[in-house]
């Protein structure tokens, strides 16, 4: 148990340190005051360009698995916000890399090229009626415990979705999944949710049937599954309060099957600490890949630190998700589409892009659809209906909609009562806190009184979700929950979800409480459109956009970056728009969106 271990070590720390401290009479105990040459922590590496193997300097055998040679180790950070605590691939809070490095999926999906790549499946196909899907299970794959990977494992993993404790909705549209030989046959009800199924194929872990059968009960999430058995390129090495360490799995199937070879022997994922520590680690070569939002990247990439990003210039980052303003459409005056539209026109996202983010993000399209979904944007609709920044137009529209300007220069409700909208972002989210002040400033110019606040995270969630006792009380919040993926359906499902989900923890969609049956019908229709039928998808999307741009249930602001800063001191050949166009993130879900190729592409910097 990692906590047990850390306790032992820390006791050792205490003992030894006290000893050494008492031994020395001066302020800085001399024993070990300076790290032994060649064995510093990565963040103290004397000269990153010439890393000395930790082992050689101390005479320890180079194979000592408790010391990771710098040039064989990839240091990452950005996914883990707390100590790694569960390695259960079915738990959304699983540690970094559990799904992707250790456990794998049937397919990969590349959002940039919009293609599905067979992975643990060697392929899959629909019958003519498109109600039965046959998965061809890849042969020659072995679990990290040596046992063979079979169709039973796949069938078992699919059927796990029937475990209520996991709350999967797969069997809302699937009737059965059964192994037959090297295939798994999945039977669907009428109008299968093709989009969701496609998503399931590249998002759900395949686990070992034999190992997991005993856990398949109400307490399945209680299985922390540390050092579990997977098929992926890495296996569990160790974990502590501040780190998660993976070690290369020498018997990874893809090496033989696809001639793929992950470069790093070790991956050490460092639990996020403060911005400046992370930045310091990155700049001093102690961190190779950082998926945190770091300030001043524009300066740093040109600062001679050998640090690069996906794009050499603005916006530097790929777009990872859309940040939008959520109005509470159940409260005056936000229940009035005209007012929401005017608000949308009043805000200039470009301000946030430049002043807050220093151009490392891009302003969002009026539809809010991420660049990876740009082909679904109906330019015509956007042109005619899309809200564009214009303080003047915002004022005019407000006046036209019957909102009079009060003595204090702010517009008032139609009944004459004052309007004061609280905009909440969680305390400590520094970039958003900056953004909300800029937004409030813009709105002010148009006569809309927005009061930027930042209560603690719990309060924001309570105000936004409501509780079993109280309905949501927020006026405005910022949200960016929809990540890039295989289908705009996720985006629209998020906005238009019906019927209203009971307030409380489970409510994780449609916070604006906008109900529009037509829109919801379209969303379901979209879900039931085969993924290859992009024509139909486009038509449905444009209908949805018409509704969205007219009613403005949410106000898209900017595309949050897929924060990714890489150091080229030890590893090179990182993803970039000039080189391999791969997702450069370690976050949940990104490995199977192609980030795994990042590891197979990496090249160690030759020792000079």
């Amino acid at each position: 148990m990692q906590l047990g271990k850390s306790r032992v070590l820390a006791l050792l720390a205490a003992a030894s340190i006290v000893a050494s401290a008492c031994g020395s009479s001066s302020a800085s105990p001399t024993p070990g005051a300076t790290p032994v040459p060649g064995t510093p922590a990565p963040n103290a590496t004397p000269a990153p360009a010439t890393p000395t193997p930790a082992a050689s300097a101390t005479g320890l055998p180079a194979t000592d698995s408790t010391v990771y040679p710098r040039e064989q180790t990839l240091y990452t950070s950005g996914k883990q916000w707390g100590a790694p605590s569960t390695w259960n691939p079915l738990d959304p809070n699983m540690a970094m890399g559990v799904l992707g490095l250790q456990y794998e999926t049937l397919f990969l999906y590349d959002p940039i090229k919009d293609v599905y790549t067979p992975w643990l499946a060697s392929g899959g196909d629909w019958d003519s009626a498109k109600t039965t899907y046959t998965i061809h299970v890849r042969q020659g794959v072995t679990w990290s415990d040596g046992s063979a990977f079979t169709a039973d494992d796949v069938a078992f993993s699919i059927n796990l979705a029937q475990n209520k404790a996991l709350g999967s909705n797969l069997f809302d549209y699937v009737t059965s999944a059964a192994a037959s030989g090297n295939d798994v046959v999945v039977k669907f009800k009428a109008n299968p949710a093709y989009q969701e199924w496609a998503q399931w194929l590249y998002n759900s872990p395949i686990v070992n049937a034999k190992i997991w059968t005993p856990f398949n009960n109400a307490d399945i999430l209680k299985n922390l599954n540390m050092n579990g058995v997977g098929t992926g390129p890495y296996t569990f090495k160790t974990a502590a309060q501040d780190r998660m360490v993976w070690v290369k799995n020498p018997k990874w199937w893809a090496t033989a099957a696809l001639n793929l070879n992950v470069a790093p022997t070790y991956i050490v994922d460092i639990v996020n600490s403060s911005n400046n520590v992370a930045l310091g680690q990155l700049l001093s070569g102690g961190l190779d890949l950082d998926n945190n939002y770091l300030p001043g990247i524009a300066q740093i990439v040109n600062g001679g630190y050998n640090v690069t990003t996906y794009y050499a210039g603005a916006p530097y980052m790929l777009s990872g998700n859309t940040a939008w303003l959520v109005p509470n459409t159940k409260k005056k005056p936000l229940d009035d589409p005209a007012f929401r539209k005017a608000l949308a026109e009043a805000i200039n996202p470009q301000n946030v892009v430049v002043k807050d983010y220093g151009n490392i993000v891009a302003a969002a399209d009026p539809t809010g659809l991420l660049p990876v979904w740009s082909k679904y944007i109906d330019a015509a609709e956007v042109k005619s209906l899309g809200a564009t920044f214009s303080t003047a137009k915002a004022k005019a529209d407000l006046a036209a909609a019957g909102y009079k300007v009060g003595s204090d220069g702010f517009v008032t409700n139609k009944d004459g009562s004052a309007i004061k909208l609280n905009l909440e972002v969680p305390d400590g989210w520094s970039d958003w806190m900056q953004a909300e002040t800029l937004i409030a400033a813009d709105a002010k110019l148009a006569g809309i009184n927005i009061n930027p606040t930042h209560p603690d995270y719990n309060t924001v969630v309570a105000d936004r979700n409501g509780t079993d006792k109280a309905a949501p009380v927020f006026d405005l919040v910022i949200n960016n929950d929809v990540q890039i993926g295989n289908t705009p359906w996720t985006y629209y499902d998020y906005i238009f979800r019906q019927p209203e989900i009971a307030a409380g923890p489970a409510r994780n969609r449609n916070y604006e409480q906008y109900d529009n049956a037509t829109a919801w019908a379209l969303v379901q229709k979209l879900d039931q459109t085969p993924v290859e039928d992009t024509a139909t998808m486009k038509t449905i999307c444009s209908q949805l956009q018409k509704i969205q741009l007219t009613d403005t249930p949410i106000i898209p602001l900017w595309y949050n970056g897929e924060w990714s800063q890489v150091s080229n001191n030890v590893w090179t050949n990182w993803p970039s728009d000039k080189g391999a166009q791969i997702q450069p993130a370690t976050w949940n879900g990104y490995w199977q969106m192609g980030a795994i190729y990042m590891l197979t592409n990496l090249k160690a910097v030759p020792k000079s």
Partner: protein
Amino acid sequence: MGDRVRRYFGRKLLTYSITFFVAATIDWLIPRFMPGDPVASLVSRTNGISPDAAKALSDYYYNLFGLNQPLPVQYLNFWGSLLHGNLGLSVYGHGAPVTDMIMGAVPYTLALLIPAILLSWWAGNSFGALAARRRWLDSTVLPMGYILTATPYMWLALVLSFLLAFSWRIFPLSGGYGFNLEPTLTWLFFTDLVAHWVLPFLSLFLVMFGGWAIGMRNMIIYELESDYSRYLEVLGAPQSLVRKYAFRNAMLPQITGLALQLGVIIGGQLVTEIVFSYPGLGHLVFAAIQSADYFLLQGIFLFIIVGVLVANFIVDIVYVIVDPRVRVSMTGGTA
């Protein structure tokens, strides 16, 4: 005499236990008083999952944290489980036992605090005493003491880490031990551990050192002006003897200071650990605050409360041993 002592400590113990009870109860109220629903927050961090999945997950956490019980029951459970050293489960740790998380961090904190406090106390006092007799020290080095003790902990820590770790690469930047290492009983690991310890230790040590030095310097001067010192001088006793007495007596108030210090220093500890992301309690407190994990906070604070009370009690005992005046007044001067 014996039972006098017993009564004295008996009363102390009573006061302490009442204090503990009150403090612990206040502490228990924290998570319950906080607005919002920790589980909702926890679930809301897992974006992209379906509403059904969110529902299932939240149900899982609710009975994990035992939040679906009435408050009085929760309060009784609190004391009940407290006796079993169980402080509940951490939201930040996705259900990891708070006790384990604290125990994982405590040794680091102690490894910083104990040497920092004791060494700074010892060094500061010796130096202060020295300054009290050496004019040049008094006018040259002591002012440094004022600057040091007036420096905000984190600021000094940041300067040290920027210069010694970031720019000059003499010490590691952050963490408890190298990210390239696993805990082993090797010299390599040990030295690395110490290397990571030095800077946080130094920032705590220096600030406290200043405070002690000044305090001691002033106390000594008072003692040297006191009647018993004058009497010895009039009778021609050598300076060595006079100073010996003065130092000894000036030490006593510094011991009380040490008691308060032991508790309050947690503040400096907190910010210092944050700056160096040193995996001690302070760092944990910060993480708990950031992720609104009030169960973890409650546990840590409870731990701190106990620590402070114990420290104070120890000092009470030490004081009785070192200061005859207390001892005598306690035993009522019977002989």
